[in-house]
């Protein structure tokens, strides 16, 4: 997909939260979201993601890494679902064996993508979670 063909979702006013302890991935994921016109915030681990929601913040989409210090992605996803957070949560991780993927999905994910995240993979997440309809 060329730069000119990328959808601009700014009008839909979608918001997203990047949850990842790696600064390189944070930067890339934020840029991917911004390229599609999605406003976004970033936190460094699952606990910060939970705290953000406890403080009243809410997001349409959460991109959740699995391996993080303090609170990992599986724990954070479970906690958010226990809190009643209904945001779409997409797991984004390098760990992709079936067992790990299953455990992560069962924590409450809506979708799962293997890193590295690309525009195509992000569009796939958005399409699957009904944020974006391909024309």
């Amino acid at each position, binding site marked *: 997909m060329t730069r000119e063909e990328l959808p601009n979702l700014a009008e839909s006013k979608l918001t997203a939260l990047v949850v990842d302890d790696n600064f390189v991935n944070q930067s890339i994921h934020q840029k991917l979201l911004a390229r599609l016109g999605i406003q976004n915030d970033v936190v460094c681990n699952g606990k910060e993601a939970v705290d953000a929601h406890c403080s009243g913040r809410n997001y349409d989409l959460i991109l959740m890494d699995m391996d993080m210090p303090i609170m990992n992605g599986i724990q954070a996803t479970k906690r958010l679902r226990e809190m009643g957070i209904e945001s779409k949560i997409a797991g984004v991780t*390098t760990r992709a064996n079936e067992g790990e993927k299953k455990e992560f999905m069962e924590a409450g994910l809506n979708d799962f993508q293997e*890193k590295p995240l690309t525009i195509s993979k992000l569009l796939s997440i958005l399409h699957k979670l009904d944020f974006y309809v391909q024309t």
Partner: protein
Amino acid sequence: MQRQVALIKQSLFDQGYLDEQFMELEELQDDANPNFVEEVSALYFKDSARLINNIDQALERGSFDFNRLDNYMHQFKGSSTSIGASKVKTECTKFREYCRAGNAEGCLRTFHQLKKEHSTLRKKLEHYFQLARQAGPKETARRPK
């Protein structure tokens, strides 16, 4: 000069230093962030230097905590994958295999090679970005043939 920049980039792909992911990052550059890839690369080399230092210290202690080493290398591999640092990623994978096998000598040997690849990539990318800045912006990002 644009041609020289393109040739240098092509060689980085041809020699296996970079993979497709690097092109994905270049596609994200726009007028708001014309140096996005250089900025992300700088982040990567800063973060990976920290990880190299941690692993060096862990190895120097002599007692091999393979779980801890594997965790460090998991992070290193993740970052390397995200910027398309192909050869570095390969060495990370090998190191992790040696960790799982409890092979200390293999870890040491692979880590030595990893540091070489990392240092080489750093120099080559610094040179590439320097020339790219001098050459000025190009109209579109092109995938190497």
